[in-house]
């Protein structure tokens, strides 16, 4: 068995994708679909939560997509939650189960799970930021004993935009998870749902700032106000983690598109410790 990364790295070209089969497609929202992808025999995806793969449709193009499934669950199949926003994602949404897609990766730095062990975790997702965060959440749930208290704040536009509703219910029903939702239009019957942005949830949570790690993933506009709230709770910069999205062509630190100042998001990120990026003007 080889890992996909080795397959990518040691294939004759780092740009050559491994062809993998889409085995299942499920609607998440009107714009988002969950693709379950199966690697060819003998290849497994050995990823960290927070890492991404480059997904391609031959003849259309390639895009970076976060791995949404947890490494603790499967090795030969993995899940990608993809939003239809443009060219490639539009074509991906038209595919049927059974179609082949190209995969390279996994690339980038994920979240350092070892450093999170024993800590309380505050997960904050905005919009489709829940897709990469889900990988992390499920990883923690599968090894629940190794981590402390777990809080999930998820901000969404409306009920129709909520992704992974079944799992949300599961998390909601667990004793050891505290899940809070915010919606700009709170049109759903949910035990803990607040009207507004994800930042409006902070007054409702209690946490121990010295022992809590915060992980924030969402659209560009969300970072500054959310970090302010997290800092407000007393969490130090070194305990705040983020993930960034940028335009990326190569995924391997060459093409220059994802650069934030001197940093290549595809190599040093997409997961970053806040203190390493807070002074970069182009970061947020």
């Amino acid at each position, binding site marked *: 068995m080889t890992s996909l990364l080795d397959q990518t790295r040691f294939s004759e070209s780092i*740009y050559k994708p491994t062809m993998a089969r889409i085995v299942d497609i499920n609607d998440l929202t009107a714009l988002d679909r969950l693709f379950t992808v199966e690697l060819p025999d003998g290849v497994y995806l050995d990823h960290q939560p927070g890492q991404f793969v480059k997904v391609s449709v031959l003849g*259309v*193009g390639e895009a970076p997509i976060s791995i949404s499934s947890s490494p603790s669950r499967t090795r030969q199949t993995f899940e990608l939650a993809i939003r239809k926003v443009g060219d490639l994602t539009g074509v991906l949404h038209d595919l049927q189960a059974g179609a082949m897609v190209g995969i390279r990766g996994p690339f980038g730095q994920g979240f350092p799970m070892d450093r999170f062990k024993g800590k309380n975790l505050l997960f904050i997702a905005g919009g489709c930021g829940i897709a990469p965060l889900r990988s992390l959440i499920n990883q923690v749930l599968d090894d629940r004993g190794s981590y402390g208290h777990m809080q999930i704040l998820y901000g969404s536009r409306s009920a129709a935009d909520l992704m992974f509703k079944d799992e949300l219910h599961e998390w909601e029903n667990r004793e050891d998870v505290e899940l809070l939702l915010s919606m700009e239009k709170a049109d759903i019957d949910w035990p803990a749902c607040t009207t507004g942005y994800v930042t409006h949830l902070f007054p409702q949570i209690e946490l121990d700032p010295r022992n809590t790690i915060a992980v924030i993933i969402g659209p*560009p506009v969300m970072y500054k106000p959310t970090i302010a709230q997290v800092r407000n709770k007393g969490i130090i910069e070194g305990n705040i983690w983020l993930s960034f999205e940028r335009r990326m*062509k190569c995924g391997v630190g060459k093409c*220059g*598109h994802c650069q*934030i*100042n001197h940093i290549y998001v595809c190599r040093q990120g997409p997961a970053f410790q806040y203190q390493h990026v807070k002074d970069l003007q*182009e970061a947020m």
Partner: protein
Amino acid sequence: MQPAKILPKSAFPGWIDFLKRSYTVVGPKAMHGQTVFGEIETADDLTLEYNQSVIPPKKYLVPQREVLIEYKLDGTEVEAKFNEEATVVFGVHTCDLHAIKLLDLIFSKGFTDQHYAAHRDNTIIIGYECLTTCGPESFCRSMGTASAPESAYDLHIIDMGSDYFIQIGTERGEALFTGYDGVFTATEPDYARMNGTLSDKWQRFPYRLDVDVTEIPDLLAESYHSDHWQELADICLACGMCTQVCPTCYCFDIRDEVDVTLSVGKRVRSWDSCQIDSFALVAGGHNFRETRAARQRHRFMRKGKYQFDATGMVGCVGCGRCATACLVDITPIKTFNELYRRQQQQPEEVEA
């Protein structure tokens, strides 16, 4: 290092003919008052005494357009494509040799880019020592690139009047003489003459930078919030010519091209430019470097600092190409000197 060779100029055309038998030979050619690297048929086509070529010889290592993979759309065949053409690049200026050294570092760092490596493996680089500057825009001496870096060339030519003194950089460089008998091994007096030629050249190379090159990374780090970027942005056309002609710019785009019957296609890499509006645009319409000021800053920060952080080499080699190309006269010399002037002024302003 292998002892150098002496090639009488009279034997030079014969050597080119000899090389043509096994290689595609390219080099600087005069073209409508400019110099352009292109294929050489005979030694007559070469103009070794030239001012900077429009596009640097990087085009032989990172072509403007290059097929990375070819495939059938149904996924049954996916094949990586590599350069296989054995090429000799003649007459690479010393600044461009430095630039190639930088590209070598970039494309081997982290993940090795095998397509670059294939070009590099098949391309033999013959440097050419500059004995005069390349016209008003170049500033190689200021950037420390007016002499050849050892690791970038296979052979390096120094014009000594009636002969060429040829330094050997690699074995495959030396092998270009295997089977050719018009060349001699350099002797003591040849070395002495060569040293004389080299030490004479410096008087013809002025310093143009007001700050020492080793201070450039710090200067730029401190200039991140300078107003100067906006001043450059006011005149910048965002045409991207500066990055296209730069020997150390390598950013690229990758696109798929499909034949009209939708059966076969290829994934193609082509040069891109951080000066173009859409370079950092992402889905949803968010542009991470929307203003021309941010883009000009990024360009100069890359040259002066980011590439230095990544490779230990300053990313500008002082060739002056971008200055020649830019229609509104944005130049590294003027920019670096202006940033320096402001940096020097600042403490006084604070005091006053």
